[in-house]
């Protein structure tokens, strides 16, 4: 974990859970492993608050606990999972993906679970149905069964999974709530890191839940509200048959999907739409059979691909063969051929594709930041590995003076490395080869850190902008509240207009500008996250293939 990651984690924790959790979380990040008492003491926060913070973190799967270094008899120690905290940056993307795959219902299901960390199926279904009903026109409501359908679709495609077994979860509750007696959790089994190791991971429980989403009554109707609350209480105690089975979002599965999307869109822009559809089909076919860290997908034959292609594409068999040959011949090597049986066996080179995408990302950064001629030098070095300065000038056909300037700038930014090879042991410059080179993996790591810093900066700026305009924001909220209550009580239009004019024109303008700024910052955060995702996947794939 680096300083930039810690900073970003802190900002994300503050955004989602508030400043106390940020304090505890960042301290835990910096110190690695700590027990409860040390944590409370070092952050000078009350024991109670620290417990609550840890509760939040454990609930969201961001924190782990286990027997301490002093063995099972010692106090329980806590750890925070930095990677998991950084996933919070990607929440909008998960939700968007669920929306584009499973519509509004899927979107809300994922959103609810992300917001609460883990939920039982029945409560998800109830909340989502209520929320959907809320947005529908009067007299319509959402059937629970539809939400159950969407939920089971998400589980079947492994986007949702069960939380690790209940006994360790039970331990979570006891340790966080009663850590004054650490002995009670002494026999805690460490939480299984892989939820997939659990056999029932994707098994849906039988739930007895039928009915429709309820609409919240207008606030004026106090009596009805009261009655509703009573009924809600009754409902909550109702047995649905899935108590204790909690669900969480399977981030790995989402990431696989993102990765496939990236590969498909790369093929689409390099070759054409049809090729990308073929690759999409290949990826879909091998989705279930290929492990997440594999370098290649499971080989599929051309016959199988032909059968699995969506009929709307209308690709004839000989044309498909031609497309596959083209894909294999392409220097990017997205697709490889492994054999001739069944009309040719084909795989998607996942790691190669990621490496290519990461390389393109690096090139694009150099291109945008230092200009296309520097990018030419950068690509040249990537291609030829080691080159002397003179060779760089000659190959890139850039005048010596400019080439030198660009090369040194790239070197000072650590995008290019310099290797000395002395002919004599004294390292005299006149008798030394100076070879320039680009190391893709370390450069990608550098870029990743830059991305973390950039996102932190954007969040920081966003917080600053909101803080600066706090007064305006509060005022506009207050006035909106007044307007709403006036409208409810049936006030005259003149009265409404009068209240509305309490916000002056310049203020309105400022608010408009603020909204524009925040949107821009938000969308940029998501864009940088796409870069982060690509580079992270590349680094992970490079680590696993070693």
């Amino acid at each position, binding site marked *: 974990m680096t300083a930039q990651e810690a900073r970003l984690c802190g900002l994300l924790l503050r955004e989602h859970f508030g400043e106390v959790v940020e304090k505890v979380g960042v301290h835990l990040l910096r110190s690695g492993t700590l027990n409860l008492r040390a944590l409370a003491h070092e952050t000078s926060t009350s024991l109670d608050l620290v417990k609550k913070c840890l509760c939040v973190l454990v609930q969201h799967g961001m924190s782990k606990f286990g027997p301490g270094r002093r063995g099972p008899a010692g106090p329980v120690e806590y750890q925070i999972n930095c990677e998991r905290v950084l996933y919070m940056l990607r929440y909008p993307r998960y939700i968007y993906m669920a929306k584009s795959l499973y519509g509004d219902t899927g979107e809300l299901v994922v959103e609810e679970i992300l917001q609460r960390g883990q939920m039982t199926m029945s409560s998800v279904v109830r909340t989502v149905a209520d929320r959907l009903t809320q947005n529908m026109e009067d007299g319509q409501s959402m059937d629970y069964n539809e939400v159950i359908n969407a939920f089971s679709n998400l589980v079947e495609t492994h986007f949702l999974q069960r939380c690790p077994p209940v006994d360790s979860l039970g331990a979570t509750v006891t340790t966080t709530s009663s850590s004054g007696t650490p002995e009670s959790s002494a026999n805690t089994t460490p939480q299984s890191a892989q939820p997939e190791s659990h056999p029932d991971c994707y098994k849906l429980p039988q739930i007895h839940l039928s009915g429709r989403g309820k609409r919240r009554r207008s606030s004026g109707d106090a009596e009805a509200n009261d009655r509703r609350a009573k009924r809600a209480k009754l409902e909550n105690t109702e047995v649905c048959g899935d108590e204790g089975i909690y669900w969480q979002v399977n981030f790995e599965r989402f990431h696989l999907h993102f990765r496939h999307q990236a590969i498909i869109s790369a093929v689409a822009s390099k070759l*054409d739409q049809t090729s990308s559809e073929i690759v999409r089909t290949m990826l879909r076919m091998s989705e279930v059979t290929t492990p997440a860290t594999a370098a290649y997908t499971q080989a599929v034959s051309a016959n199988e691909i032909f059968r699995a292609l969506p009929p709307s594409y209308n690709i004839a068999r000989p044309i498909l063969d*031609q497309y596959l040959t083209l894909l294999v011949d392409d*220097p990017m090597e997205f697709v490889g051929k492994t054999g001739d049986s069944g009309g040719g066996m084909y795989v998607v080179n996942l790691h190669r594709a990621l490496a*290519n995408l990461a390389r393109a990302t690096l090139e694009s950064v150099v291109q945008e930041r230092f200009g296309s001629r520097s990018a030419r030098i950068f690509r040249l070095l990537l291609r030829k590995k080691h080159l002397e300065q003179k060779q760089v000038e000659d190959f890139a056909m850039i005048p010596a003076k400019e080439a030198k300037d660009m090369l040194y700038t790239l070197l000072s930014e650590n995008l290019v490395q310099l290797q000395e090879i002395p002919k004599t042991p004294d390292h005299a410059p006149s008798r030394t080869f100076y070879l320039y080179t680009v190391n893709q993996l370390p450069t990608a790591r550098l870029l990743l850190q830059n991305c973390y810093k950039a996102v932190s900066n954007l969040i920081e*700026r966003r917080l600053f*902008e909101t803080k600066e305009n706090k007064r305006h924001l509060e005022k506009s909220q207050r006035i909106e509240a007044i307007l709403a209550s006036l409208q409810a009580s049936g006030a005259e239009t003149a009265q409404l207009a009068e209240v509305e004019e309490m916000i002056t024109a310049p203020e309105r303008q400022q608010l408009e500008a603020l909204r524009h700024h925040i949107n*821009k*910052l938000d969308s940029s955060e998501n864009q*940088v996250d*796409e870069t982060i995702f690509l580079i992270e996947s590349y680094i992970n794939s490079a680590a696993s293939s070693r």
Partner: protein
Amino acid sequence: MTDVKVKKESTDVVDIENRIKELCQQFPQGITDQVIQNDMPHVEAQQRAMAINRLLSVGQLDLLRNSNGLLYRLKDTQSASKMKGSDNQEKLVYQIIEDAGNKGIWSRDIRYKSNLPLTEINKILKNLESKKLIKAVKSVAASKKKVYMLYNLQPDRSVTGGAWYSDQDFESEFVEVLNQQCFKFLQSKAEAARDSKQSPMVQRNSSFATSYEVWKYICELGISKVDLSMEDIETILNTLIYDGKVEMTIIAAKEGTVGCVDGQMKLYRGVNSIIQPTGLVKTPCGLCPVFDDCHEGGEISPSTCIYMGEWLDF
């Protein structure tokens, strides 16, 4: 008696000299001492040495050194006649420059090889230049460095820099224009192929252009004042590869096909990049020149960043 002997010796010497010259004509690449010895086993070593020395001193023979000892070679009469009226030092310098070939030689290197003082060498060089025996050429590698070579030689590419230099200046604009033109050619070809609505294989194959085709296109465009060779165009096409805009494949071709070199043909085609500009560079931070100095609470900080401010108001 002595008189007779001397006379006999002198005729002998002339005979030996003539024989050596004959030998040299037989072996234009030069002969070793051993060859002369084998040819004239009866001649004493001293006599042989005298004869060779005489020939060397009158400038009819050249003494060369190679891996297996000394070599004698007949000096070509042409240069001998050119050098008429020059002294030994001049001849020496001329010889050094001649040996350097079309790569040329720097005056300091002449000094090392000849062991003559620099002032003397400068005088001789000026002299030779005025006789149009040698010429000075400015090297592109170092603009202040003059190299000397024989007057009638065409300077090597490493000295003049080939087609991309005029007066020792790299014509970067010329290169850029050619770069763009080549790309335009390949791109239009790729587009035509894409619009042809043929089978994908045919589409790909027709988007390729050989380096010969590109060369012909550029020549017909007439944008270049100098004659460009196919290698020149290939270097330009290579820069396009490094720009990530073009791909190259090498295919085997029958010897004698146009644009075929050593049984290979280089095919180029314009390609698209696999990604759009990445997300990071769409933010001001991705391009910020003071990115590393930026810290919250510092002189440069995200809250007070003017770049970010301008970008937000854009």
